[in-house]
């Protein structure tokens, strides 16, 4: 998480550096009175590198995807709440077919 954040900040810094290089390049072009058709190749390479870092950071920093299947391994409810006085077990759930392959998780 912290690594992803650092990589993201690094990517943004690379982009800022590329922007600064482009500004200087334009200044140079103005002196030589030429048209600006695009930033130089090394700036493009820098932009691509910054983009790759930012994509990687954008995918890792916000957090993992959590499973939404109710029967998946990490969504199992394995303990009863402490206050079980109000829990009713004599309900209509008994008409569901028994699932015999559910294992007890320690």
């Amino acid at each position, binding site marked *: 998480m912290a690594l992803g954040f650092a990589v993201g900040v690094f990517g943004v810094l690379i982009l800022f550096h590329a922007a600064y290089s482009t*500004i200087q390049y334009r200044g140079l072009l103005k002196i030589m009175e030429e048209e600006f058709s695009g*930033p130089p190749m090394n700036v493009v390479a820098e932009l691509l590198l910054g983009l790759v870092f930012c994509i990687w950071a954008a995918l890792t920093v916000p957090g993992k*995807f959590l499973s*939404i299947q109710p029967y998946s391994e990490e969504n199992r409810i394995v303990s009863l709440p402490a206050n079980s006085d109000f829990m009713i077990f004599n309900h209509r759930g008994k008409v569901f077919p028994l699932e015999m392959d559910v294992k007890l998780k320690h």
Partner: protein
Amino acid sequence: MDSIPTFNAEHLQSNMKTIYYSRTFLSIIGGVIAGIMGFTSLTGFIFYFLIMAITSVGLLAKAGFTVHSYFDSWNRVLLDGFLGGLMGLPLPSRFCLLLIILL
């Protein structure tokens, strides 16, 4: 008895938020890059769609290509936030372009 597919709504919402953050951040970064490269109008749009497509592929890869264990439909992963992020691109793009032209 048939069971209606039910989902853990809280996790689903958290996953949607994750996608939203990723897309927003990348649309801003895409805007900055488009501004630096001097992309305008049509080229800028094409660039934006390219960035969003790369983001979609990245999100799919993050979900391990098994969309059904994290989302209820493909459309959510691929298209959600696509148009919302469209607003995020022109502003940084114009800002960078302006900065570069003026300085």
